[in-house]
């Protein structure tokens, strides 16, 4: 089985090493300049890329080590957004700073180039993770837009502008993290706005577009997500009931997050294979990706590294990658 595994990659936000955590704390306390963190983070990003390359993963991540949370670059650098209170990140013991939308959002400076080590990614098939526009809206406090749809579409436009700044060294795979699309079933108007926002991103970006539905049962976004412009649909098999997506067939790829980024148990290849097959047998996709269910930042760094190694091993043994 497992024919058609065309790619393997991991969730993009990696845990920081304890040394990097300490460096960030020194910066926060004003004891060191931010440049010291940049040097250290870049060195760690470089090693991370090299590790994934050695292991044969298809799309490599640079770890997004400078991002305190996935929304933060936009929270801090978009005009019209203020940094709000610490807020729980879904059902995790992890918190993000809520963006407060105080006026229509505007991009007045390049954002991603300050957060991504693009110079390490030249010639690399790399993966970038960004917030899906509807999820961004849901995780924000909107005090300005009279129509929430406009915020979603404006944010999609901003993502496109940002991706253009990366042009030459842009990501081959863009993952839009979209738990809010799976949290519950959306109504028709919401779905249409989400699709429109995804169309804006897809039209402005040349690589593969993945919408990753994690933390919640992905079936909540079926079947409409199959009509969206996403090239790859990601699911979290640890919270998705396979019977609810059984029988779907589509001309897109299905990314199955068979490695649990929220628990330290390092899955065996057999466990990964069993889980992969139990979902791949349910859904007939054009092809499959083997991935993590979410970002690996929920783990201590050495555990995350062990999970990447095991994912790569499973990818080889299950018939993808180098074999």
């Amino acid at each position, binding site marked *: 089985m497992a024919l058609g595994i065309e790619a393997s990659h991991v969730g993009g936000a990696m845990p920081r090493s304890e040394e990097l955590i300490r460096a960030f704390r020194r910066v*926060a306390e004003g004891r060191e300049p931010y440049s010291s963190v940049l040097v250290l983070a870049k060195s760690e990003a470089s090693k991370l890329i090299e590790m994934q390359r050695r292991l044969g993963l298809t799309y490599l991540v640079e770890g997004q080590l400078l991002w305190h949370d996935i929304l933060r670059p936009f929270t801090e650098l978009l005009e019209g957004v203020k940094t709000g209170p610490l807020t*729980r990140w879904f059902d995790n*013991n*992890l918190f993000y700073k809520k963006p407060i939308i105080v006026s229509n959002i505007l991009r007045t400076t390049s954002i991603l180039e300050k957060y991504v080590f693009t110079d390490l990614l030249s010639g690399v098939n790399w993966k970038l993770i960004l917030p899906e526009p509807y999820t961004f809206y849901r995780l924000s406090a909107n005090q300005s837009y009279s129509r929430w749809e406009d915020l979603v579409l404006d944010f999609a436009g901003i993502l496109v502008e940002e991706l253009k700044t990366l042009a030459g060294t842009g990501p081959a795979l863009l993952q839009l993290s979209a738990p809010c699309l799976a949290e519950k079933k959306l109504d028709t108007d919401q779905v249409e706005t989400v699709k429109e926002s995804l169309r804006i991103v897809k039209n402005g970006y040349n690589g593969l577009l993945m919408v990753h539905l994690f933390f919640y049962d992905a079936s909540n976004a079926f079947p409409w997500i199959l009509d969206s412009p996403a090239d790859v649909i990601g699911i979290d098999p640890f919270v998705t*009931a396979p019977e609810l997506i059984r029988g779907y067939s589509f001309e897109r790829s299905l990314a199955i997050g068979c490695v649990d980024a929220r628990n330290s*148990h390092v899955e065996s290849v057999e466990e990964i294979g069993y889980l992969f097959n139990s979902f791949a047998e349910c859904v007939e996709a054009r092809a499959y990706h083997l991935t993590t269910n979410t970002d690996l930042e929920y*783990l*201590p760094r050495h555990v995350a590294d062990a999970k990447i190694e095991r994912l790569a091993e499973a990818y080889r043994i299950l018939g993808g990658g180098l074999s």
Partner: protein
Amino acid sequence: MKLFPTQEVGSLMRAPFLRKQLDESVISETEYWGRLLGVERYEVLVDKLRREDYTVEELRNWASLYAIRLHEAAGLDVVWDGEQKRIEMYEHALRQVKGVEFLGKVKVWDAETYNKAAIKSKPQLAENTYVPEFQFAKRHARRELKVPLTGPYTLAEWSFDEYYISRPRTTGSLIERRREAKREMVFDLAREVVRPVILSLVENGANRIQIDEPAATTKPDEVGLFVEAFNEIVKGVNARFTIHICYSDYTLLFPYILEAKAHELSIECANKDAVSLGQDERRGYEILKLFREHSVDFALAPGVIDVHTDFIEPPELVRDRLLHAAKIFGDPSRIIACNDCGLRTRKWDVAYRKEVNLVRGASIARETLE
């Protein structure tokens, strides 16, 4: 019974002589606090620090005494030692448990992390530092004591599971098997770890215990599990129990919390409230309407002191918050005056002044109603 009794919520920043390099400024600070708080024989400690003639255990005992005196000097009715002998609420609890391995730092936000453990086998209490900690406090306290303990749901929710999910289970979907694993993990921590500690404390004379469950609402579909586990640890125990839950969506507690066999629920409100005076509108205490609507039978301890800011709430603000809370809740006799959470992130001078004003504010609120 006294209206608006005052109490702390557990932690306090480490005493100066525990947290710093011991130079002359630390010794002066130790002397200052010893004198101000009326710590008996503090000169002995100062002398020992000067001569560098002390053990770590001695310093911890002194820290515990200083913290008790700080709470007492502020005038609180119910006190504790500020958790001076503990690492932090999670690691301290699990360091005493067999079957647990600490794996390393994980992010909570920005550069803030905690040392996260994995449950590797059935957890069992291997050590119990809570009893000597309580005995020391009991020997020295002049006010009633309340012992804080971390609850089983939070211990489970903040840990990795490498044991329960790996146990063979023949039935159910992956989702159901994981749910069952989580339930076993929570109940083992309740029965094998937290309940034995409670029983040993009560046997040694503890009659007020606070169960800290900040993770209670993390997973909305598991709030009922948190309550079940709480009821398991307090079953048949003769003591007054407080549940403390902070920085949470309290709407998720309902209806499950109605089944909790608790005497008090301590929640954070001041952090969400304005600092202007007034008793008519206070956004931080809106949530109390929900508790009234559900006719809860426990007392409520809404935080009237924000522990995340150095702003010293004037007594009049504490008064207004308490009177407003009493009005919303509908029963002043079941409102307790306390902080949002432990004061471990505030310096001692800030913490002390906040607690002094907590007591003053409660006093004028009391006078207003009486």
